[in-house]
């Protein structure tokens, strides 16, 4: 296996596993997740629930497809777009000085927003390489 293919599969599997785990952790308690989104104070009350009940399954689906190796480019693109949104939310929380949980991987103390920001940048790198290293010579 060439280095390029190795890098592609490594990025794809890491990205997929991250999103699958993050989605499952959030889906286990969507009400708590709604509270964590509400803590960002970006959305009206009921919309926090709308995001909390849908986002985990989008993450599970995208992560699962990446691991499975199907629709990889679409899934990688989606994870990148979602991560850009997350980065925006985290930045806005940091700028407003909110002391809140990231809410990134289910509930849990000690997830600082700065760390979450760094991790999201790492995710963007993974998504970038997954998208661009994906072998395109295969017939559609």
């Amino acid at each position, binding site marked *: 296996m060439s280095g390029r293919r190795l890098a592609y599969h490594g990025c794809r599997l890491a990205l997929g596993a991250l999103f699958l785990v993050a989605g499952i952790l959030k889906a286990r308690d969507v009400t708590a997740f709604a509270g964590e989104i509400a803590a960002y104070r970006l959305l009206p009350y009921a919309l926090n629930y709308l995001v909390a009940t849908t986002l985990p399954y989008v993450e599970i689906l995208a992560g699962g497809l990446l691991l499975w190796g199907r629709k990889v480019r*679409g899934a990688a693109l989606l994870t990148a777009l979602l991560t850009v949104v997350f980065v925006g939310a985290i930045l806005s929380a940091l700028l407003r000085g909110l002391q809140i949980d990231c809410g990134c991987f289910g509930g849990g103390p000690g997830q600082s927003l700065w760390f979450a920001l760094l991790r999201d940048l790492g995710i963007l790198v993974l998504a970038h390489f997954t998208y661009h290293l994906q072998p395109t010579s295969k017939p559609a």
Partner: protein
Amino acid sequence: MAYDRLSRDLLEALVILAVGVLIGLSLHSRLLLDAFSGRLQPRAPALSAPAARFPAPIDLAGLRRELQRGTPIVDARLPELYAAGHLPGAISLPLADLDQDLAAFLARVPRAQRLVTYCNGYGCPDSYDLAVRLLAVGYRDVLVFEDGLPAWRDAGLPVTEGETP
């Protein structure tokens, strides 16, 4: 060519998003209906939390430190007393109405957030009782300003009047 591929990938991403959203909507339609109709009730507190945590008392100096850090201050007294005068920026969460007000409070203040409760000083147990209840529903760090509003006012510090925003 490249543009075509990008738009096809975007379409793929959109489809994944839509399917995920639909799964979430169908799995949680009840919760969503409740949330959008404002009927959402607070859940029973999780009992897995570490047993027997107690709120820690702080004095006026401690309270001022917490205020500087932006810690939310929670007024445990009745709404009429709150309206008559409260700490600037305090959130009104009367112990007597807790069952009714808890859901909104939970949505507003994350459980990881440190809180300070207060009421009318040493003659008033409500701030301590409220702190115990907040710990029981999952707040991790609740402090009690035991000296309460009287000590604050006697120190010549500003008191805000009026209803809660």
